[in-house]
């Protein structure tokens, strides 16, 4: 099966763009549902961090990026991978511990990277990818690449020292990086009310001379527009922007989560703000897509994810024989 080509531009700019945005959000959701199902059936081990409910952010952001532009991602990173163009077969294969997985079975869900699509990797350490994104942006500046680096992280990461040190470095050197905080309300079980004395987390930018903007992270068009402006600013040498996308994860933090820290009413309330449903309303209202178009995108997404799972299942299990040789990159003669 093939991965749809990346599409650059506003999700509402054309029928093609609208279809692409909807298809990609739907692919992310179906992918996460498939992962949850595979875990539930005992076919995957380890853990998983699902991004259901947060699909607008990766899709809106990546529609503002060229292939050469880079991203760093988080433990909740499946959506970022897919939106940047990763091959879902290799993603599922990785989760299943197969040789043909992105990491050859050595990394799993939290360590998928895809150099060809500019994905410098998910990260199992909260905030760990933020300084790395800043370093990649320094590379871009020093090598005059003209590219931008997107640093995805969650609300929890904003209380890590890594965020603060990296934000300051990016600002003093005016690096082409965009900091994207996907504020889904909770760092594991700690709500942002408990973890911050701030109404808008984007106000943290002020302390570093970085403009900060908070917006509806479930509105893919708003996400695109804010990212597009921040990317333009970064590429023109004006430095970083901090974007806070307010969103919500429908599922638990990981598979051990019993949702003791929030109510069912709260979760249901957020389900009415579903980013996919929201986008469907907008495209129908504007006459961009028909109900049949919409159904077709969901059908395609389901078909692609099922095909990816079936294909990935055929892979060979990763072989421990290669482990020792994989620690260091060989020194070329």
């Amino acid at each position, binding site marked *: 099966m093939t991965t749809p080509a990346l599409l650059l531009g506003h999700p509402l700019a054309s029928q093609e763009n609208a279809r692409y945005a909807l298809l990609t959000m739907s692919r992310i959701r179906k992918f996460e549902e498939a992962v949850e199902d595979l875990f539930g059936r005992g076919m995957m081990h380890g853990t998983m961090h699902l991004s259901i409910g947060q699909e607008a952010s990766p899709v809106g952001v990546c529609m503002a990026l060229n292939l050469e532009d880079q991203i760093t991602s988080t433990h909740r990173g499946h959506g970022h991978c897919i939106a940047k163009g990763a091959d879902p077969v290799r993603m599922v294969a990785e989760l299943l511990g197969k040789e043909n997985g992105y990491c050859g079975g050595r990394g799993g869900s939290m360590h998928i990277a895809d150099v060809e699509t500019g994905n410098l990797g998910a990260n199992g350490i909260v905030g760990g990818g933020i300084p790395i994104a800043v*370093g990649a942006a320094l590379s871009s500046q020093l090598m005059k690449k003209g590219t931008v680096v997107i640093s995805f992280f969650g609300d929890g990461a904003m209380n890590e020292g890594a965020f603060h040190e990296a934000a300051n470095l990016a600002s003093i050197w005016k690096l082409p990086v965009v900091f994207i905080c996907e504020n889904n309300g909770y760092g594991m079980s700690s709500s942002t009310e408990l973890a911050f004395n701030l109404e808008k987390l984007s106000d943290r930018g002020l302390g570093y001379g970085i403009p900060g903007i908070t917006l509806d992270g479930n509105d893919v068009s708003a996400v695109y527009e804010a990212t597009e402006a921040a990317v333009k600013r970064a590429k023109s040498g004006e430095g970083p922007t901090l974007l806070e996308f307010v969103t919500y994860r429908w599922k638990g933090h990981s598979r051990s989560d019993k949702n003791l820290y929030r109510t069912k009413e709260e979760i249901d309330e957020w389900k009415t703000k579903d980013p996919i449903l929201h986008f469907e309303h907008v495209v129908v209202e504007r006459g961009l897509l028909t109900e049949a178009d919409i159904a077709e995108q969901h059908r395609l997404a389901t078909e692609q994810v099922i095909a990816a799972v079936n294909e990935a299942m055929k892979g060979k299990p990763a072989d421990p024989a290669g482990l020792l040789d994989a620690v260091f990159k060989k020194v070329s003669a």
Partner: protein
Amino acid sequence: MSDRKLTMSEALREAMSIALDERPEVFILGEDIGIYGGAFGVTGDLYHRYGKERIRDTPISELGIVGTAVGAALSGMRPIVEIQFSDFTAQAMDQIVNQAAKIHFMVGGGLHVPLVLRTASGSGTGAAAQHSQSLEGWFANVPGLKVVIPSSPYEAKGLLLSAIDDPNPVIFLEHKLLYKVAGTEDVPEGAYRIPLGVSRVVREGKDLTVVATGIMVTRVLAAAAELDKEGINITLIDPRTISPLDMEPVYASLAKTGRLMVVQEAPEHGGFINEVIARVVTGPSLGHLIAPVTRLAGMNVPIPYAPQLEKAAVPQVEDIIKQAREVVVNWR
């Protein structure tokens, strides 16, 4: 070729200068490495020769500095990070241990991190417990890091050039007492490279094989000169990189001497010398041993301040002489 007895600082600076000339992707970042010339003067005049883009002063943000270097290394650059004191690497451990060391392996080989982290290590300057540690054992215990400990200016230059060439993260631990000391060997002006992972036989003697790195190489050499007068002859082996660790010369030497002594400045508990012992007693040399293995290490204490306390906490020349003599004399 004229006499070129450089200090380790000068030799390191020459290596960096060669690398900066050879490769446009090399740059240096760290605290006070620019106009100031580095906390120990190692970067010296490089700022004036290569400019502020490539000799990049940073705020005091060790985690941010190392993380930025990791990201730059992933995207085509070849950063050399200077951390003023190795103790401060504790501030940057996530980026060293969880990121730099693991990325190549963890993501399946598609990315690599050609990064050198140079830092000043060891005691002897009266800087006390937070500016004097020898942390090589920490790093050697993390798969994915190479750990280099140069013992002289000549060694430092050749090893640093190899470290910069290496496509993997290299922790380069420079003993601060060696920075200002002129070496006994000439340091060639141009580029030369000492491969990582190859031990050096520093001197040969029939009675005892000593394994030591860094400043302890200097101290064992001084001890060996004294012991020569007593007719006790020492072989000294400097692994130069403790990860990866080349044990072959140690095994070869033990076949001749039958006696092993290991020396380090770091606290004994959990130290790298214990790995040397373990490989000897579980490996091909066990049958060659004619004496119990002996080790000499720092006390299991934080490095204290007062000069007499500081000296007492780590092996000195006289400690080495005494312990080496004992093992040879008692196990004739």
